[in-house]
């Protein structure tokens, strides 16, 4: 039995999606897409911020966007606002990179600067896998994961 012996302060997730980089970019930056695979959250990138809203329009998160280069690269702060203990931890960083390879898009998500946020580091791993799997299904089939 293998156990996690250290906090994973840099986490890397990668997925290939049969879609153009522009389609992937829209899917990660527009609320009408994110609500269908990102735990129902409506994410909007506006005015240098990444604003998250719940299904009823309530504010769930407001994080600084530190780099934006459509449709290739997006870097923003991360705070796990849905969990009170994780929300108290310092902000970490999420980098989205989109590269075109042989007609498909390779999306890499790097969640790092987690040194001060062990609860977030442990809490987001399963979430990222579910989000990326759902994003791929949505873009390739037009339907969210059931």
């Amino acid at each position, binding site marked *: 039995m293998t156990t996690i012996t250290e906090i994973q302060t840099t986490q890397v997730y990668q997925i290939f999606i049969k879609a153009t980089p522009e389609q992937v970019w829209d899917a990660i930056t527009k609320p009408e897409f994110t609500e269908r695979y990102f735990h129902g959250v409506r994410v909007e990138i506006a005015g240098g911020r990444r604003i998250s809203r719940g299904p009823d329009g309530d504010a769930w998160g407001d994080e600084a966007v530190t780099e934006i280069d459509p449709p290739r690269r997006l870097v923003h702060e991360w705070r796990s606002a849905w969990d009170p203990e994780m929300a108290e931890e310092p902000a970490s960083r999420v980098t989205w990179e989109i590269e075109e390879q042989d007609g498909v898009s390779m999306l890499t998500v790097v969640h790092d600067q987690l040194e001060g946020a062990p609860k977030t580091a442990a809490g987001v791993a399963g979430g990222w896998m*579910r989000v990326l*799997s759902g994003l791929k*299904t949505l873009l390739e089939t037009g339907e969210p*994961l059931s």
Partner: protein
Amino acid sequence: MTCDHSVTYYQNMTDDDVVFRALADPTRRLLLDRLFERDGRTLTELESQLEMTRFGVMKHLHILEEAGLVVSRKAGRSRLHYLNPVPIRLIHDRWIDKYNEHRVSALAELKTQLEETA
């Protein structure tokens, strides 16, 4: 000519085939376990954990990278290897979730039947 055969063989492999092939080796699973324990390691660190030549470890890492199970990224002057669990999650979503759906729908049917007869 044998090279041509192998090229054709790999071209016909689906993404799932490549993942299962990569997982079907104890050394490669051991490498994934090591990265699970501590992610972001150099080739030298991984090599020190295995009784194998550097070339052997490189060959196994290459197969894991081809399958998307390991992603390597440059960090300054070194190249770090990370475990990417997403391909295994995709297999889970494609196969295991189907079984869960059946179980859930079977329970739902049972509930309907019991409530109708009650």
